[in-house]
Every structure is written in C-alpha cells, then in structure tokens.
C-alpha cells in the first residue's frame, strides 16, 4: 500500500498537470469572484466562506478522472486488481494519494486566498480546519465517482453530474463551519457533522468503489 501511495504521489508530481492545476484553478476562481460581485469588502467578507468552499470543491473535481483513467488505459489497474492487497485497500490508497496532491494543497492555500476575499479575522483558523476535515470526504466520494465512470470514453462530464449531488452535505457543513467560525459562533455541531461525513465516507465508500471497479474490469 505504501509503495502504491508513493507511486501515485510521484506520478502526480512528475507527470505534471494534476498537481498544480487544482491550485491554479482555485486561485483563478477566487480571483474571478470579486470581478463578478464587485470589490465591496463588506459583501466579500460575507460570501468568502461559501466562495472558498465552492472553489475548493470545483478544484477537487478537476483531477478526479485522473485517479483511475491512466491506470485503466495502460493496464496497471488490472494488475492492481490481481495484486495481493484487496481492491478496497487500493481504492483507499488512491483516495489518500488524491487528497495529498489536491485536498492538502488546497487546505494550505485557502487562508492565503481568504485574504484576497477579506475573510473575517476569526475565520482563517476554522477555514483551514473545515477544509482539512472536509476535503478527505471530497476525495473519497470523488474516487467512488471515478470508479463508476472509469470504463467510459467521455466520462468527465458524467463524473461531475454523478459526484456533485454527493458533495452537497460536505459543502453545507464545511461552509457553515467556516461561517460560524468567522462570526465567532459555536462551531461544535458542524465540525462534528463534517468529521462524521468524512469518517463515514472513508469507512464505507471504498467498498462501493471497489465493487464498481470490479464490474468495470470484468
């Protein structure tokens, strides 16, 4: 599993594209919003938590189809499926690698982009915490979507259609957690709920994703 993990990381960094792309996309989305709604700092402060979360979610979506597509094309996915480790573990490892190359950089970059959107001072800590707690769920749900669509020729758009409704609860709790943190309200409830979603998804979805992969490799 560790070997697969480091292999995926190395591929993501060396093969280019995937690694920096999500970050650049996140930056661009965040920079575009003030052009759309105007530079009024009051408005920006109010919408910053939501915009940052939607931006992170879309950036995460970009690299999902790469999780399995390349391995499927060159046949290494078949090898992984027959490897001694269970396919569920392969899926979980892939999701973890996707998180490290996408979710983690997004989490670290988000406070910086918060400055651009004039996020309230109390919000930075909770923005980082909410993204750290929520982006793993995005990666795991996305891995499930990628496993469903891996055999398809033009799966990209379908993947978005399948995955975005599944992202709704994570987005709601994540944005709510950041908003409450920024306004200095109690944060326990959304924090517990978003952590629950992440843990639940991590516990159950690898099985669903592995089942989908087995069907696709049949």
């Amino acid at each position: 599993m560790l070997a697969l993990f480091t292999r995926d990381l190395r591929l993501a960094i060396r093969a280019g594209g995937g690694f920096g792309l999500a970050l650049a996309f996140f930056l661009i989305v965040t920079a575009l919003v003030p052009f759309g709604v105007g530079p009024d700092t009051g408005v920006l402060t109010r919408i910053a938590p939501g915009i940052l979360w939607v931006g992170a979610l879309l950036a995460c979506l970009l690299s999902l189809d790469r999780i399995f597509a390349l391995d499927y094309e060159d046949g290494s996915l078949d090898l992984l499926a027959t490897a001694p480790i269970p396919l569920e573990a392969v899926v979980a490892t892939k999701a973890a690698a996707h998180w490290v190359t996408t979710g983690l950089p997004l989490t670290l970059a988000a406070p910086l982009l918060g400055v651009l959107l004039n996020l309230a001072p109390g919000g930075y800590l909770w923005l980082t915490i909410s993204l750290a707690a929520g982006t793993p769920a995005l990666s795991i749900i996305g891995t499930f979507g990628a496993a469903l669509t891996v055999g398809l020729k033009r799966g990209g758009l379908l993947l978005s259609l399948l995955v975005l409704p599944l992202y709704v609860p994570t987005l709601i709790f994540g944005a709510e957690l950041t908003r409450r943190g920024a306004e200095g309200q109690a944060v326990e409830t959304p924090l517990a709920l978003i952590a629950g979603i992440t843990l639940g998804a991590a516990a159950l979805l690898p099985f669903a994703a592995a089942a989908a992969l087995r069907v696709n490799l049949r």
Partner: protein
Amino acid sequence: MASVWEFANPRKFMAVSDRALPWLFTLAGAALAIGLVWGFFFTPDDFRQGSTVKIIYLHVPSAMMAINAWIMMLLASLIWIVRRHHVSALAAKAAAPIGVTFTVIALATGAIWGQPMWGTWWAWDPRLTSFLILFLFYLGYMALWQAIEDPDTAADLTSVLCLVGSVFAVISRYALIFWNQGLHQGATLSLDKEENIADVFYFPLLVCIAGFVLLFIALVFYRTRTEIRARRLYAIGLKERMV
C-alpha cells in the same frame, strides 16, 4: 409453491403484466379522473388560500411518488445485486424517467402555488432544495444508464450508484434542515398524528394519491415491458452478429 420470484422470469412477467396492464390503466385513469374532478370542482375554496389550495391534488401525490419511485428503484437495485434477476434491473431503469417526471411536476406545481402564496417562485427551503437534489440524482442515474453500452455492467454500476445515492440523499435531507429552516409548511398527511387537513379536502386527496400510485405501477409495468423487448432485440442482434 407460488413465490414472488416467479415474476423474475421475463416470460412470466410479460404474461402477467399483459393481463394486468389494461386493469391498471383503467383504474388509474378512473381514480385520477374522480379525484381531480372532485378536488377541482366540488371542494370549497380555502378561506385564506382561495382556489390555489386545489393544486394540492397534483402537488402532494406527485411529491410522494417522486420519493417512492426512488425507493422502488432502490429495492429493485438491491434485488438485482443480491439475486441478479434481470427484470428487476430493468424495472429500476424503467422507473427512473417516471420518477424524474413526478419530481418535475412536484417542483413546478410548488412554484406555481408559491408565487401567489409566498410571493416567490422559488425559495432555498430544505424541502424545495432536497427535491432539486433528488432531481439531480435522477439525472445522474439516467445518464449513467445511457453512458454504458453493456447492459449487465450498466445494471451493476447504476445499482451501486442507487445505493450510495440513497444514503447521500438522506444525509442531504438532514443537512438541508440544518442549513436553513425554510418556508415550506409541515407535512399535510401523516400516519401517527391527527390530520391537519379538513375532511372535505382529505378524501379527494386520498383518491388522487391512489390514482398516482396506480399510474406509477402501470407506467413501470409498461416501460419494463418495453425494456424487456428492447433487451430481446439486443440479444437477437448479438446472436446474428455471431453467426
């Protein structure tokens, strides 16, 4: 011994549904005609809502069936995964477009009612929003069926999607209540509480609900028959190509 699994045999299913369909359509048509005419023309106007209250005869049954159609797809998907009966998978496939139509009817009638009553076509209310998300789930499910060529692969993958989607649909529902308290009134009908609707509106509503249920069953049978025939054609095509 007779068992419900006998209907998993496509030939048996075709024979039974062939005999049942005319009855189902007649009963559904009769119930809908009676319920809607009764509801629209022979019930008084509400003292606050005026005649707009009558949209309840379309809105409530279609909203109920939008959810029940998904539950039916969930059960059919489970049966497909566990027992691998093709009729079950095809019934789930057949139910999706019907479910999405009921969802659209519920959303549209709700908007038409909301405009004069709430003063807005749309509000980001938990119920409205969860129906919008349900609509997206239906679209994704149907798109996945469309996208995959091999019928068994498609049935497997859509079943998995239906199971996972159901869990997330429930989570979304509660997340949305947490997110916004909303504008939509509480449930009109419930099993455990005193009904909060006058009898004069209640009985035609029950007839309409029965009509929608019958219509749903009839349409699912009808569409499943179409899917079975399409599958037979597909099998014939495969056989011819092999020769």
